[in-house]
């Protein structure tokens, strides 16, 4: 049952966005998120929305996959909207029991909802079109200037890659241990929250033990294959910018320029 969980929510399709260099996608996502916080009028959000819809169209990712990512934040979204709606001071529109709704409150609440939605949709579009491997590679390359400040960039990305590789294996192991414990009478289903949490102890202890054992084995296997950190290491699949990546960068920056102009400087 645990094996059914898909990890890193990559959706395979053949589109320009899928083929872009991961660095372009990472930078564009960052720019997009920043743009959402720069903009403070409806024209700006309309531009952001249009840009996002265009990207989704081009990426060939079905819309329902993107919406799926939204489910996780519905609660957060409602909370943010409610707080902004009732707690923003300003021109009172109407009062209901102890709660007042202001004109400014409605404005910030709507903006907040749009911001959060676009933020989640935008970043899940990136993870849907980029394999976890490409993501770690892109991150390593983008952060490589930090190596001069002695930030272990290569090690961090190697750790991420290994973690991603081992998630399905550890899930399978969890499944196995769970079945073994159930066979010996363990009960993971009934009881209240505290009881359920307690019942996880006989699951977690063996799981941790085996994870450490695996880590030990893996370290030995990596050393046996001459792994000695990032220095002097070559890449089988090095990241190289192509023409499409330059075009994508240009598109991303023109979008930012448009957003800043219409969403900030130019006001109706």
């Amino acid at each position: 049952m645990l094996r059914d969980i898909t990890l890193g929510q990559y959706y395979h399709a053949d589109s320009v966005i899928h083929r872009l260099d991961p660095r372009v996608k990472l930078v564009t996502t960052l720019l997009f998120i920043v743009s959402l916080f720069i903009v403070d009028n409806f024209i700006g959000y309309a531009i952001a929305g249009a840009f996002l819809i265009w990207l989704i169209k081009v990426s060939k990712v079905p819309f329902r996959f993107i919406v799926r990512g939204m489910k996780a934040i519905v609660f957060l979204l409602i909370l943010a909207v409610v707080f902004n709606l009732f707690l923003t001071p300003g021109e009172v529109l109407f009062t209901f029991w102890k709660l007042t709704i202001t004109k400014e409150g409605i404005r910030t609440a709507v903006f907040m909802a749009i911001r959060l939605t676009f933020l989640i949709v935008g970043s899940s579009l990136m993870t849907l079109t980029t394999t976890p491997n490409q993501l770690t590679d892109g991150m390593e390359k983008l952060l490589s200037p930090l190596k001069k400040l002695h930030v272990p960039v290569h090690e961090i990305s190697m750790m991420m890659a290994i973690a991603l590789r081992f998630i399905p294996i550890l899930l399978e192991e969890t499944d196995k241990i769970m079945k073994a414990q159930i066979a010996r009478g363990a009960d993971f289903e009934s009881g209240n929250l505290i009881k359920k949490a307690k019942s996880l102890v006989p699951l977690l202890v063996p799981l941790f033990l085996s994870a450490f054992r695996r880590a030990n084995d893996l370290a030995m296997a990596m050393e046996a294959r001459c792994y000695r950190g990032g220095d002097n290491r070559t890449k089988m699949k090095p990241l190289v910018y192509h023409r499409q990546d330059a075009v994508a960068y240009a598109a991303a920056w023109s979008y930012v320029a448009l957003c800043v102009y219409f969403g900030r400087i130019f006001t109706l």
Partner: protein
Amino acid sequence: MGIIEAKKLIFEYIRRDEDGNVEGITRAVDEVDLDVKQGDFVAILGHNGSGKSTLAKHMNAILYPTVGTVWVDGKDTTNEEYLWDIRQNAGMVFQNPDNQIIGQVVEEDVGFGPENMGVPTKEIWERVEESLKAVGMYKYRKHSPNKLSGGQKQRVSIAGVIAMHPKCIILDEPTAMLDPNGRKEVIRAVRALNQAEGITVILITHYMEEIIYADRAVVMDKGHIAMQGTPREIFSQVEKLKELRLDVPQVTLLAYELKKSGINLPNGILTCEELMHELKL
């Protein structure tokens, strides 16, 4: 001097209590002398705790001798300068396939070793292709290792080692966690490498059927070398093998029992065909 040579090799595991005081010393390998020639297929046998895995880890400079010396391709393993040379020349395949595959795609895993060695990108791709073809896993190059069977995973691990162009590969119980089919797959791939590419193979195992193709078999017991010789010489001493708690292949055992009850048969029969031939069936 052969590709791998050990002289008076002793290795001791030291157990310590929480304060770091020595609680006990276990001698895992005791005065072992071994000489493996280039191109040989050597099997090292022994039941659990006989020291065979500890011995193997010395050939890749993962463990260092307490006393004695190990040379790989003429280089002393304790010499730090040669550490990476030794690890490249003596590739190692471990027991659990899941714990030695690093890549999320088969071809990326095979490329891991060459990447570490600093091989140029173009050559990495050539090496990956040729090693995957050598173990018959080329058509799976784009697959995720998680979706492969045990035997296939282990073949990928072997490809990952031979992509480093070693002179010798050491397989530390590569089939212990596999089903009979997976075991056959792996042994077939190893034999092919030994015969076609001339790579020296050191196979550590406790499955007796796997050693019949070896040029030489070394039986370990309590850290010592208990027996040494061709598989046929080893298998003709059924009594001694039983004493060492090792299983004899069924055919060999059957021939041994037949001989004991008076049928005229030679010693050390290894395959069904041989037995049938001898019995003139």
